[in-house]
């Protein structure tokens, strides 16, 4: 009962986080004037281009000016600049809050839909294939290697892996990506250098799936190379810290087999922080990896967010911010529940 109350409080707090995030979006985009200024400059730029093209057919200066002015009004209305930010943005936020993600102004899905939900649903599987897969692979390898290293502290393997982990953690993903493209795409010609599917794409569903996996190989490898070191070292450290606790010594002193000590007294105790990383990592993975997606021309969620900001598509920016915040909030709440289940010490 007490736990339920605490979870409810935690839930409410996280809900507050969601509200604050959305309010911050309004403030950053609206109150600072950033959004209006950038959209205004977009309109001006389009009007300047329009004036140039209209000059080819409209040779009366007064008529040209009138037409340009009318087109400007059309564009202002199109971009929503005819409404002040304090009505435009809150309306947008309220709409996404009621789970109506609305329509994008300039972005669209590959099928031509401007509905934000369609765009997201099209991109999300791409991100799962890429980023979530890479996270899972990194986590599995990291867990295995980390635990192994923790049981061989100070050994040559441990030292070597520590160095490699540091290197892996330091490597920029975009650099790794470009290097892999140069070597494996251009020199060895084993993998494609970018994109999500071959052009032309295979028609057979199985061939199409294999083609996507083939295209995903390099970007996934990039993400794994750049993150597995961090995972391994973090797991190693967490397990090592737990292994040095008194209760572990006591368990060994009681004569328990080592594998039981490892499983019941070390890994289980070290699980919560590891699980935190995994759950939060999974949630974050759905936000995509902008740098890797850009290098490999992979149409994922990270790239979508970037495109939305560059295109100043406020609808999409607000909708995606809402989605990512909800993901974080939900994953945090799930963690709270898992802590209670996993760690008997956590009781309210």
């Amino acid at each position, binding site marked *: 009962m007490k736990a339920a109350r605490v979870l409810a409080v935690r839930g409410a707090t996280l809900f507050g986080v969601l509200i604050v995030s959305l309010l911050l979006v309004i403030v950053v985009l609206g109150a600072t004037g950033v959004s209006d*200024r*950038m959209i*205004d*400059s977009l309109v*001006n*730029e389009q009007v*300047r*281009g329009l*004036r*140039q093209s*209209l*000059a*080819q*057919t409209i*040779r*009366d200066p007064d008529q*040209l*000016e009138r*037409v340009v002015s*009318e*087109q400007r009004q*059309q564009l202002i*209305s*199109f971009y929503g600049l005819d409404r002040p930010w304090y009505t435009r943005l809150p309306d947008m936020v309220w709409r996404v809050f009621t789970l109506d993600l609305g*329509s994008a*102004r*300039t972005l669209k899905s*590959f*099928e*031509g*839909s*401007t509905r934000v939900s369609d765009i997201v649903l099209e991109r999300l599987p791409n991100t799962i294939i890429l980023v979530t897969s890479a996270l899972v692979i990194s986590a599995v390898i990291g867990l295995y290697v980390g635990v192994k290293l923790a049981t061989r502290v100070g050994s040559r393997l441990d030292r070597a892996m520590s*160095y490699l982990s*540091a*290197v892996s953690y*330091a*490597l*920029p993903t*975009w*650099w790794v990506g*470009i*290097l892999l*493209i*140069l070597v494996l795409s*251009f020199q060895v*010609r084993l993998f494609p*250098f*970018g*994109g*999500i599917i*071959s*052009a*032309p*794409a295979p028609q057979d569903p199985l061939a199409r799936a294999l083609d996507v996996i083939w295209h995903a190989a390099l970007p996934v490898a990039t993400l794994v190379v750049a993150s597995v070191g961090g995972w391994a070292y973090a797991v190693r450290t967490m397990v090592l810290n737990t292994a040095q606790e008194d209760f572990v010594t006591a368990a060994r002193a009681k004569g328990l087999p080592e594998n039981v000590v490892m499983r019941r007294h070390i890994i289980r105790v070290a699980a919560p922080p590891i699980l935190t990383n995994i759950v939060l990592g999974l949630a974050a993975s759905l936000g995509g990896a902008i*740098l890797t997606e*850009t*290098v490999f*021309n992979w149409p994922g969620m990270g790239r979508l967010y970037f495109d939305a900001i*560059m*295109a100043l598509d406020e609808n999409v920016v607000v909708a995606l911010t809402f989605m990512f915040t909800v993901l974080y909030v939900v994953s945090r709440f799930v963690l709270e529940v898992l802590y209670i289940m996993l760690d008997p010490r956590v009781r309210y």
Partner: protein
Amino acid sequence: MKQIKLSRTDRYLYGVLSLLVIFILSVSTLVVPVYAQQQQSYQPPHQKPGPATDQIQFKSFTVDIAPTAIQGNQMDFYAFALRTSAAKGLLVRSDIKIYRAPASTIAIILNPAPAPSGDLNPFSIREVRYAMQYLVNRDFISSGIYQGLAVPMVTHISPFDYDYLTLYDLTKSMNIHYDSDYAKSIIDSAMTKAGAAKDTQGRWTYNSKPIQLKFIIRTEDERRDIGDTVASELDKLGFTVNRQYMQFAPAIQAVYSSDPRVFQWNMYTEGWSKGSLQKYDFATLNQMAAPWFGNMPGWQESGFYQYQNATLDDLTKRIFTGDFKNLDERDSLYRQATLAEVQESIRIWVVNTVNSYPAGPSLKGVTNDLAGGPTSMYTLREAYIPGKSTLTVGNVWVWTQRTIWNPVGGFGDVYSTNIWQYIHDTPLSTNPFSGDPTPFRAKFNVSTAGPDGKLNIPSDAFTWDASSGQWKNAAAGSQAKSKVIFDFSKYIGANWQHGQPITMADIIYNLYQTFDNTYNPSKSKIEFAASTVNKPYLDTFKGFRIIGDNKLEVYVDYWHFIPDYIAQYAEPVSLSMPWEINAAMDNLVFTQRKAAYSDTAAEKFQVPWLSLVMDKDARLVRNTLLDFSRNNFVPTNALTVNGKSLVSLADAQKRYNVSTAWFDKYDNMVISNGPYILTKFDPTAQYAQLDAFRDPTYPFKPGDWYFGEAQTIDISNVQGGLLAVGSDAKYSVQVSGPGQLGLKYILFDPVKGQILTSGDASKTSSNQLAVNIPSSVTSKLVTGSPYNLYLAAYSDKIAYVSERNVQVSVGSSLTSTTTATNITSSTTTTSVTTYTPTMSSSEGGSLGSLGGSETLIIAGLVVLIVTIAAVLVLRMRGRRSGV
């Protein structure tokens, strides 16, 4: 007969002579006129109707990967310009061919707004702005920063523009060149007069406050280096330059969306893409120099400071509206306006850059057009690789968020139009080298009453009456300045890509659609943007007449001193889609309200922006055609002219059936009349596929539209006698090139900076011209002083000039040419790129240049080594302290 005995030497000599003769004879058979040689160099691969190659695959490659992809045979041609550094490295390679085009112009715009009281804006002083002309080292920028892939320019017209000839002597007489000392003297004088003074460190101050110049420098390309160069020069002259490096979005926001009086900028590095080739410019001058046009500081934004100049407004408006009687008057106005532009120096023109497009060495049939470079409408109609039936063409994108295929409302981005231009045939096109309007699939005949005259419009001519929804005869007494008869014989009778013949109904429906969408009040409320844009233009059309089976007579209130330009203006229809597709789209947009032609209408009414390559939208069109068929619908109001119906129900039903079958086969509704059919369009894969349209009724075959490279105009063998004071001087110049050749000359005194004489050389033979300098001019020459004889050769077939600078001095004969400033090379020149100033050159998506991959690898290795070293050190320290 006595036998002649030859000595060994004689035999040797005779042998050599014989070989020489044989060699010369052999070579002479290969030496044909260059222009003809270009014609002969293209061998059509076959004589089938349609294009040279059977299939084109469009794929996406980032700009950094493009050269490697071509070398790896992953693509045959790249339709996007390479970076200068990448292009330079490829010029010497034999496995890649580079096509070049003068693509963009670079300028530095100065903010002339007056500063608030107590401050001073140096650029509010005209003399200071003018001095900037001498502070920009254009030669260094073009040869150093652009490594030869740029040409200096001092006005908005570059040596790649035809009007360069109009301004030739004016440009030379301005004598604008890099001279920082001269610039300093002007600036010092003007600034001191304005009340500024230099402090003890030589920095300009006003009211004891340092004068700061905010210089917004774009970073995406060589403008960064240009900005740094100019900023350094200003720094040397005592200005404190606040360099603000920005990318596109923040830069345009700071410059074009702010009031100049707020001084978010004092200077900015502009980049402009060159539009379609225009032999007689009217728009660029207005865009770059006319305050009224809205592209000068202030941007005609309400509430902003506006740069004003009544003289420039007057002159430029007259050019814009065609307020002149003939070419001479037009040229005079143009020169006056350009002179005023330079004197005001709001824009300091820097260079015209040359873009580079890579292709495989085996690719044949490329037309390097003056308006579109190798990406023009002609290239892929004629291009092929011997032995291959497929061409792979790369671009940065095939599909973007802005991609819309909508022949009525427009295409959303340049990547779509690059493909679309091969799917349909336009009635008219422009000559790729002269820029003149030219018949493509329709011929024309122009009659005009001149700038002040009128032609009577016959009583049986018709116009569209939107209020009654039918074609009505033109009002009695209607008149127009010009009449153009378009002959559509190459269309009518030939088939659309779905197999049905093109008829006059297609032309008339296209015409109806354009007029009704604009003038029909209910339609114009829906598609407001299109109607407001089209109305002023369509108001000039006064009547139409169908003549015979294939001709349309158009009456238009427009005049130009070149009749072909009247035809270009009066081109009534694009004739890109069959009438039933247009009718279905109209029904969707205006009756069913399920789609929109424009993005603004789509947003306003929350309907899709109609794109015929999108399955959902194409399906809507298909369903509408099925409804038409079920309901036996025929748009009789649009297709009945002078009581005669242009289409029967049976014909209409056939059209509906074949069009719906098209969708079932290709999943799109892009049906047109050009050499290629769009058979696949896959946005996810960034892929489009065009297959050749080999219908026997298609009128063109390979070779019909091949132009190749623009032939260079060469100035060679400048010969002259002794140049003596007080004596006539004559120089003989050999000029080669296509068409009617001419030569302008200027004798220039570089010491005094004056033109001594100028004029047109007289023709002495087909390729020989004579420059005559009379004694009245030579009597002013000074012995020992150097003089420049500038020569500019031109042709009526090519819209650029070829220059040569010959140095002459008194008391010497000229026996050879010097200092060729010919901007063309053997592989190049000309034309425009599709690069636009609004697209970052990094749009390809990669974060770094793979051309600099070695640098990246080294950088990465350094990071690795440093990291490992740091870890080692830390571990050693840890061991020492016993941790």
